[in-house]
C-alpha cells in the first residue's frame, strides 16, 4: 500500500490547516530562497501576503541558513582518500623501503530526529603503511646500511662507532685516500612498519532553538598502539538578525599509548645492564615493561580545548570568521617509535680524533604543552563570475617554541551545469621546537667502570653478573669478596662492573622528529565537483605538497636532507537526503521498489538481487560485510589436534604456528544506474581490512634463530592489513519479468585494484616477506563474475534463488598465485511482518577451489595458512535476516538490511581455521 505524506484528511482540522499553511509557505520559500536556505517545515508562523514579510518571517525560523552554514540538513557522504610521500633522500644509499602511503575512508551522515533535534555520525578509517624516518644522524654514522640477512639498507641505530674532530664535527674516512675528513651531511634513518589500521567513530547530537543551538558530541579512535576517547560541547548564538553568530566550544580528550617497541633495529632503545629501570629513567611519563616477549611502552595524555569564534556577515557578498582557541595537553606526548641518535664521546681522550659510540635514545618531550591558535577566514563573492574567493590565515603558537603560520586561498568557481571547479594554494611555515635536535653529542663515555666509595674498581662474575655479589682487588691484585676474603678467581671469572652514562647530563627534552623541525610547506590543488539531479554530488580533489627547510618563513629551516614531496587525492560521494524526501515522485518510486518490485529486497547478504525499474533510475548504497573465524583448526570437517597439524599440516615442511582468529571487514559502495528499462549498470568499489592472530603450536619442532625471530614476529602481535579492495563492474539484464516471477542475469568483471603484495615489516633485519594469502586485499587477477537470479512474490511472501560464480581469468597474479574459482547457490524466503519490516531465512552452499601457484617472492612458511592447498572448501550456511524500509517522513526511500550467516557445515581443503559466521548490513537509497 502506498503511503503518502501529510495526508490532510487524516489530520485533525487544526493540524490540517497548519499543514496547508506550511505547504504554501514552503512552496513560496522554495522559490524565493536558494536550496540551502530552505526553511524547515512544521514550525508555526503567520503567513503574510507580502513576500518580503514572509521571507523575513521564514528566516527567523531555526535552521535557516543566513548563518553561514551551508551543508544540507540531512546528508550521507562517503570519502575515499589516498596519500603518498616521495622517497626520502638517503644520500646515495639505496633504500629497500617503500615510502609512507595512507588509504582513508570517511563516512558521514546527518539526520534530523525531529524539527529541532539533529544527529550526526561519522566513521573514519585509515590504513598507514611504508617507511618513515625514526632518527637522524650524520651520514658517517651509517644509519642506513647493508647488513643482516637481507639485501638493501636497513636501520642501524645502536653501537655505531663514530669519529669526531676536536670541534665535534663528524669525520668520515675517505674511500680513496683513507684519510679522515670532516663530513657534516645529515641523513634520516628509515624504518618500515607493517600496515596499521586506525578507526574512529564519533557522533554529534544537536538541539536548535530559534537563535541558539547546542551540540554535544563524543567519539573514540582506536589503533593497535593508541586509543583516544573524546567528548565535546559546542554552542552557537545567532544575533543581530543572524548577521552575527558566536560559537563557543569545549573539548576533552584522553589518550593511551601502548606501543610495542620496534625490534628491527636491534636493540632498538638503549639497553644496558641497567635494564628497563634505566630506560624508564630516561623516558618520561611512560612505563616500559617486558610483557609476553614484547617490550611495551605505555603512556597517557589528556587534552583540554576551548574555542571561541565570531562569524559576521559583512554585506550581501562577504563574510568573515574570526576565532581563537586554546589547547592544553599534559602527559606522554612523545612518539614511541622515534629516537634521537646520540654519540657518547669520552672527554678524557687525547689526540685530534675523538672516537665515540652512538646509540638511539627514545625521544623525550615535555609533559605539558599549551597551544594558542588565532584564525581568520574571509569569503568574498565575486559578482561578475558568481565565484567565491576564500582566504584563511591561521597563527599557531605554543610553549614548545613553535610559531606557525598557515595561509590558504581558494577560488570556488561554478562553471555551469552544476559543475564547480576550485583551485587552491596553501602555504605553511613553522619554527623548530626548542628541544628539536637532529642528533646529540654527549661529553661522557657510554659506559664506564664502576668504583666503590673508596675509588676501588668493582668486579662482578661474568658467569652471573646480576647475582648481587661484588668483588675487589687487594693490594696484591688478589680477587677478594666484599668481606675481604680471597676467592677463587677461576671460579668467579671476574669482569669490571660497568655503569651507564649519567642521564642528568643529557638535555631535559630532545626529539629528532622532523615534524618538530623548522620548515615550510607549499601546496597547490584543485577540486572539481558536480551536482547531479536528485541531490547526488560527486567531488574529486588532488593536492601536491612540497616540504622543505628552505621554504621556512624567514629562513633558517632544516637542511635539505629532510625535504620531501607528497600528494593526496580523494573522491567524495554525497547524497542530500533532505532534498530527496521532498520530492514526492522520487519517494513514491522508492516505495515502489520496496513494495512492488519483489516484495522487498532479498536478504542483505545477497548481491545483485534486484535491478532498477526504468531507464534513468539511480540507486546508491553501501554494504558492510564482516566475517570472523576462530576456534578449532579443521581438516575436512573435523577439528584436529596440534600434533596432527604439525605432522601433516605443512606438506612435509616444519609447522610452527597456527592462526587463532581472523576478522575481515569490507565496505562496498553500490552505485547503480539504469540506462534502459531492461539494463542496469553497477559499479562497486570496495574497502577492506583484515586482522589475524597466531599462536605457536603445542609441540612445534625446534626452530632456527631466524625462524624463531619470525615466529615471534607472527605470534606476539596481531597483524592487520587494509586498503582498497577489488572493484566490481556489472551489467544486469532483465530476462523475464512478470507480476509474480522475475529473472535477471548479471555479467560482471572484477578489476584487480586490491593489493596482493602486502608484506610484513622486517624483523631483526630479516625480510619477513609477504603476508598470508588470505590477508591480501584483493585477488590480483581479473575475475569474471556471472550470476542468474530468480525472485518471486505474492502478497506478504517473497522468495528467490541465485546461482553465482567467480572465475579467475588469469593463471596467476603479479605475486605469483591465483585464488580458486568460486561457485555459490542460494535460496531464500521472506515474509513481510509489517508495512516496513520483513524477515528472511536463507540457505547457502559455496564451493571454492584451492590456490593455484604460490608467492613468487620472499615468503616464510610457518603454518598451514601459508600453503596454497589449505584454501577453499565446501561450505553450508543458513542466514537469518531483516529488512526495513522507511515508508514516510524525512528519510523516506531509505532501506536497511541485516543478515547473519551461520555456518552449518564446513568441509575445508587442507587445514583451516573454523568459520564463526558473517554479518551483512546494507543501506540503499533509490530515486
Amino acid at each position, binding site marked *: 500500500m502506498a503511503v503518502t505524506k501529510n495526508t490532510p484528511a487524516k489530520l485533525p482540522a487544526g493540524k490540517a490547516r497548519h499543514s496547508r499553511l506550511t505547504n504554501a509557505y514552503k512552496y513560496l520559500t522554495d522559490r524565493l530562497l536558494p536550496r540551502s536556505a530552505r526553511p524547515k517545515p512544521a514550525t508555526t508562523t503567520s503567513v503574510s501576503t507580502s513576500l518580503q514579510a514572509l521571507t523575513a518571517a521564514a528566516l527567523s525560523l531555526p535552521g535557516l541558513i543566513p548563518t553561514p552554514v551551508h551543508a544540507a540538513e540531512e546528508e550521507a557522504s562517503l570519502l575515499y582518500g589516498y596519500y603518498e610521500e616521495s622517497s626520502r633522500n638517503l644520500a646515495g644509499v639505496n633504500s629497500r623501503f617503500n615510502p609512507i602511503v595512507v588509504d582513508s575512508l570517511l563516512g558521514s551522515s546527518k539526520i534530523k530526529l525531529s524539527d529541532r533535534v539533529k544527529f550526526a555520525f561519522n566513521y573514519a578509517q585509515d590504513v598507514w603503511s611504508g617507511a618513515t624516518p625514526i632518527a637522524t644522524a650524520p651520514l658517517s654514522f651509517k644509519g642506513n646500511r647493508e647488513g643482516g640477512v637481507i639485501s638493501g639498507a636497513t636501520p642501524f641505530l645502536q653501537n655505531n662507532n663514530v669519529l669526531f674532530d676536536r670541534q665535534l664535527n663528524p669525520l668520515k674516512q675517505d674511500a680513496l685516500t683513507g684519510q679522515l675528513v670532516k663530513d657534516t651531511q645529515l641523513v634520516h634513518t628509515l624504518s618500515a612498519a607493517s600496515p596499521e589500521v586506525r578507526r574512529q567513530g564519533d557522533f554529534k547530537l544537536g538541539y536548535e532553538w530559534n537563535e541558539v543551538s547546542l551540540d554535544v558530541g563524543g567519539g573514540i579512535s582506536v589503533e593497535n598502539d593508541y586509543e583516544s576517547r573524546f567528548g565535546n560541547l559546542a554552542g552557537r548564538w545567532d544575533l543581530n538578525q543572524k548577521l552575527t553568530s558566536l560559537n563557543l566550544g569545549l573539548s576533552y580528550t584522553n589518550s593511551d599509548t601502548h606501543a610495542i617497541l620496534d625490534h628491527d633495529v636491534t636493540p632498538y632503545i638503549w639497553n644496558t645492564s641497567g635494564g628497563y629501570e634505566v630506560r624508564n629513567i630516561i623516558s618520561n611519563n611512560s612505563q616500559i615493561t617486558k610483557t609476553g616477549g614484547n617490550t611495551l611502552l605505555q603512556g597517557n595524555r589528556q587534552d583540554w580545548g576551548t574555542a571561541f569564534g565570531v562569524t559576521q556577515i559583512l554585506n550581501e557578498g562577504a563574510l568573515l570568521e574570526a576565532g581563537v582557541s586554546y589547547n592544553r595537553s599534559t602527559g606522554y606526548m612523545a612518539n614511541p617509535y622515534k629516537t634521537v641518535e646520540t654519540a657518547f664521546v669520552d672527554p678524557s681522550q687525547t689526540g685530534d680524533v675523538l672516537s665515540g659510540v652512538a646509540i638511539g635514545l627514545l625521544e623525550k618531550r615535555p609533559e605539558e604543552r599549551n597551544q594558542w591558535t588565532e584564525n581568520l577566514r574571509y569569503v568574498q563573492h565575486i559578482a561578475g563570475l558568481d565565484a567565491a574567493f576564500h582566504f584563511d590565515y591561521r597563527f599557531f603558537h605554543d610553549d614548545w617554541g613553535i610559531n606557525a603560520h598557515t595561509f590558504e586561498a581558494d577560488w570556488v*568557481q561554478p562553471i555551469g551545469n552544476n559543475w*564547480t571547479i576550485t583551485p587552491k594554494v596553501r602555504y605553511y611555515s613553522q619554527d623548530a621546537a626548542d628541544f628539536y635536535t637532529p642528533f646529540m653529542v654527549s661529553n661522557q663515555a657510554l659506559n664506564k667502570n664502576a668504583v666503590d666509595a673508596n675509588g676501588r674498581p668493582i668486579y662482578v662474575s661474568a658467569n652471573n653478573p646480576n647475582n648481587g655479589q661484588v668483588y675487589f682487588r687487594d693490594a696484591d691484585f688478589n680477587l677478594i669478596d666484599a668481606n675481604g676474603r680471597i676467592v677463587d678467581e677461576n671460579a668467579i671469572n671476574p669482569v669490571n662492573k660497568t655503569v651507564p652514562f649519567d642521564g642528568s647530563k643529557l638535555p631535559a627534552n630532545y626529539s629528532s622528529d622532523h615534524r618538530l623541525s623548522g620548515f615550510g610547506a607549499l601546496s597547490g590543488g584543485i577540486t572539481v565537483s558536480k551536482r547531479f539531479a536528485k541531490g547526488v554530488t560527486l567531488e574529486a580533489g588532488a593536492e601536491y605538497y612540497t616540504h622543505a627547510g628552505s621554504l621556512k618563513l624567514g629562513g633558517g629551516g632544516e637542511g635539505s636532507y629532510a625535504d620531501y614531496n607528497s600528494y593526496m587525492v580523494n573522491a567524495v560521494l554525497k547524497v542530500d537526503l533532505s532534498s530527496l524526501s521532498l520530492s514526492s515522485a522520487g519517494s513514491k518510486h522508492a516505495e515502489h521498489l520496496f513494495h512492488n518490485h519483489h516484495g522487498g529486497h532479498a536478504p542483505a547478504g545477497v548481491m545483485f538481487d534486484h535491478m532498477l525499474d526504468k531507464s534513468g533510475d539511480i540507486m546508491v548504497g553501501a554494504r558492510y560485510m564482516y566475517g570472523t573465524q576462530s576456534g578449532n583448526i579443521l581438516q575436512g570437517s573435523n577439528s584436529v589436534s596440534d600434533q596432527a597439524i604439525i605432522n601433516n599440516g605443512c606438506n612435509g615442511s616444519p609447522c610452527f604456528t597456527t592462526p587463532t582468529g581472523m576478522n575481515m571487514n569490507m565496505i562496498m559502495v553500490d552505485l547503480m544506474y539504469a540506462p534502459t528499462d531492461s539494463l542496469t549498470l553497477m559499479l562497486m568499489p570496495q574497502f577492506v581490512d583484515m586482522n589475524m592472530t597466531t599462536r605457536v603450536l603445542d609441540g612445534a619442532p625446534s626452530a632456527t634463530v631466524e625462524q624463531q625471530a619470525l615466529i615471534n614476529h607472527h605470534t606476539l602481535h596481531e597483524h592487520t592489513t587494509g586498503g582498497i579492495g577489488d572493484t566490481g563492474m556489472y551489467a544486469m539484464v532483465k530476462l523475464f519479468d512478470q507480476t509474480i516471477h522475475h529473472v535477471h542475469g548479471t555479467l560482471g568483471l572484477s578489476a584487480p585494484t586490491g593489493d596482493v603484495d602486502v608484506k610484513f615489516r622486517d624483523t631483526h633485519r630479516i625480510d619477513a616477506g609477504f603476508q598470508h594469502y588470505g590477508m591480501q586485499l584483493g585477488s590480483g587477477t581479473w575475475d569474471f563474475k556471472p550470476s542468474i537470479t530468480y525472485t518471486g512474490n505474492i502478497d506478504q511472501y517473497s522468495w528467490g534463488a541465485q546461482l553465482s560464480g567467480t572465475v579467475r581469468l588469469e593463471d596467476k597474479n603479479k605475486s605469483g598465485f591465483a585464488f580458486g574459482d568460486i561457485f555459490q547457490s542460494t535460496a531464500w524466503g521472506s515474509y513481510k511482518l509489517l508495512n516496513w519490516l520483513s524477515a528472511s531465512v536463507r540457505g547457502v552452499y559455496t564451493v571454492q577451489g584451492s590456490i593455484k601457484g604460490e608467492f613468487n617472492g620472499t615468503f616464510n612458511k610457518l603454518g598451514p595458512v601459508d600453503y596454497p592447498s589449505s584454501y577453499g572448501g565446501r561450505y553450508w550456511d543458513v542466514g537469518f535476516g531483516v529488512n526495513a524500509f522507511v515508508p514516510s517522513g524525512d528519510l523516506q526511500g531509505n532501506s536497511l538490511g541485516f543478515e547473519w550467516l551461520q555456518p552449518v557445515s564446513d568441509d575445508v581443503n587442507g587445514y583451516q581455521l573454523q568459520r564463526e559466521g558473517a554479518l551483512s548490513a546494507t543501506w540503499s537509497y533509490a530515486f
Partner: protein
Amino acid sequence: MKLMQQALLIVLSVCVTGCTPVSPWQRGKLASQQMALDPYPMQNTFQGHIYNSREAAMGGNSAGGGGCGCN
C-alpha cells in the same frame, strides 16, 4: 577571556568600517554553495588529518577533540 576579546575586537573593527545591514531577502548569494565557509567539509577533514600528522600546528577553528597516534 582575553582571547575572546581579541576575536570580538577583530570582527568589530572590521564591522565598524565595512559592515552593512543585509536584509534576509538579500542573502541569496551568501547562501550559495560557493560562499560556504567550508565548501568541501569531507575533503577538508581528510586533508586536515594528513596536515595534522605532518605538521606541528594543530587545531584551529573548533574544539573537537579526537586524536591519533600518527603525530
